[in-house]
């Protein structure tokens, strides 16, 4: 299968500090790839470069065969990269359905003049957008919550809404930044199943940053491990679980030595 996302030798420095050190990385189409690593390993920084929030210091990023290095975030979203945030960043004073509608921004065409005149074409577009938004909310498990303020949703529902909003951008690749952080085991299990459905029902490719090893091992085709900005391992979950460098990175050298002794 072709690679949807290709990052070559991507590097980010803040001042003198190297946050991401020449990382090569690919995500195959329709794959579910996880990016793991201890806190401060540069996972979110890497995400932010993929989505254009940060500029790369050097390296190249290609998406669906097109160079997207240092393109602004909205341009990358337009090309089919949707994302969620580590700390939920919903538009809190908007209703759930409005949040989803904002996500559709780049897929709608309504211009200024049309909006002022509210032409039949625009009305049709808006009505279709509403229907699709409602459908997305239903798909994400938020049926009937259309007009609730997003800040009033429970934590798990806010996570769902973030995904619904990201789906509204009609992505080919969905980036989820620690989506199960703060969820209870039941919610986490539901969410893991949900990620599986995203690929199976919607044909999406998913890139996941995750701390919960159960989620990672359960859902991923492939896992990449970052530590201090460097890629230290890559492979199927079963291999990663046994990889010494990974265990060392997570638990420290002593633990590894202690285990082998």
């Amino acid at each position, binding site marked *: 299968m072709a690679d949807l996302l290709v990052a070559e030798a991507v590097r980010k420095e803040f001042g003198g500090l190297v946050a991401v050190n020449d990382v090569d990385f690919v995500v195959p189409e329709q794959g579910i790839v996880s990016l793991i690593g201890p806190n401060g390993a540069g996972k979110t920084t890497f995400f932010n470069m993929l989505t254009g*929030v940060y500029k790369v210091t050097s390296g190249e990023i290609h998406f669906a065969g097109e160079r997207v290095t240092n393109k602004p975030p909205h341009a990358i979203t337009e090309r089919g990269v949707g994302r969620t945030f580590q700390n939920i960043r919903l538009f809190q*004073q908007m209703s759930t359905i409005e949040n989803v509608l904002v996500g559709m921004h780049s897929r709608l065409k309504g211009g200024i003049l049309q909006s002022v005149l509210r032409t039949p074409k625009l009305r049709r577009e808006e009505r279709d957008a509403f229907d699709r938004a409602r459908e997305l909310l239903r798909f994400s498990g938020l049926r009937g919550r259309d*007009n609730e303020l997003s*800040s009033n949703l429970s934590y798990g529902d806010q996570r769902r809404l973030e995904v619904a909003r990201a789906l509204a951008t009609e992505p080919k690749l969905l980036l989820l930044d620690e989506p199960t952080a703060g969820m209870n085991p039941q919610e986490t299990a539901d969410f893991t199943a949900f990620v599986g459905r995203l690929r199976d029902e919607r044909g999406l490719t998913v890139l996941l940053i995750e701390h919960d090893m159960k989620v990672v091992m359960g859902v991923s085709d492939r896992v990449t491990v970052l530590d201090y900005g460097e890629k230290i391992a890559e492979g199927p979950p079963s291999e990663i679980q046994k990889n010494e460098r990974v265990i060392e990175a997570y638990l420290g050298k002593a633990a590894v030595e202690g285990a082998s002794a």
Partner: protein
Amino acid sequence: MMTEQQTPQQRKDEEQRLQEVIAQRTQRSAGLWRRETAVALIPLVLVIGYAIIYPFEAVYTTLREIPGIGDFFPTPGSAVIIIVFTMMAIGLNVVVGYAGLLDLGYVAFYAAGAYMAGWLASQHFEQVTFHFWSPGINPELPGIHINLWIVLLLAGIFTAVVGIVIGLPTLRLRGDYLAIVTLGFGEIVPQFVRNGDNFKGFDLTSGSFGITPIDPPGFGDGLGDGSGGLLPVNFQRSFDAEQLYYWAALGLLLFTVFCCWRLRDSRLGRAWIAIREDETAAAAMGIPLMRTKTWSYAIGAFFGGIAGAYYASFKSGAFPSDFYFNISIFLLCMVILGGMGSIWGVIIAGTILGWLNIEGLGVIGNYLNDWFFEPVTGSRIEVPKYQFGIYGIIIVTMMLFRPTGLIPERRRKLEMEEGVHDEPAMGERAVNR
């Protein structure tokens, strides 16, 4: 927290109402109406009806003679100015209220509009004689004389372009820096027009004399007579000139309100609010930050330009002394008092402050002097002199005790109370966090 504590129940009610409002609005943007929406329009119709009949002599003179409160009703002439400034405030509201960008130099757009009227509808460019549907003006008269209705549109477009030109390099900046840059433009533009009477011998702005007189609006001989005398040929020469100016101003105001209202509930309006709430998330949802912000500038400027051009025509002149920093603050005060983002609020605050500005402070000052200062201190105080001190007090009081304004936009209320992500989305500053 900036407002008084609410009980959980009150808070829940408030949120319930907000949800209803938002639901209505979202349905509106898809053209779905409900009976509630129609009922809500009744006060609107009443207010507009009142506004339309107000300038009839029988109406406003009667109102002005009511003992005690008669002084609170402005003359139609003053009302024109009130309406024009309210219109500008609604334009500014698009920038400050919707997109959350503080603009301290809105007066630049007012000036640009006024000078467009000066250039395109006066004898200023006497080197040429160009008439286009000029309303009842001697065709021999030198200068460019384009019908003012067209000039208004051209002024709006020109000002929108000015807004884009100012916006493109500056809208990347963080909120407070942007405010300062707009303030800078607001200071440069008046100086530019003041000094613009001699660019290598070319007189662009007539310097500190300003451009005067400026043509009045009108429908010209063809259209005016063709309508059977219903449409005035030339406002200035009609015996009811002030009323005509008033109704036209009211029409422009309604046009502005209508456009801003529709835009708020559109794809663009949602994008503005998204940017106001969280730039980073908005960009990640595919909203082009620069373009969307620039549109808010252009649209805000568009209405400022139209209002400026119309006002210049009303008082038949564009003078550099009209365009000073305080005007920007005066307009900002209207937006803050009314409630940032709230069209109704801005209309009401614009009416109140506009009235205070031209008649009200004098009226209130007289009351105060008669009933308080003169009997107590033995001297009278010139209250209008302190108008900007009074606006300052209004601004500070509002920001401290009711930052969401008299009639808060529902959404904005929660934002002001709970704070938003107001750091920039891109650039090294965000990166370094």
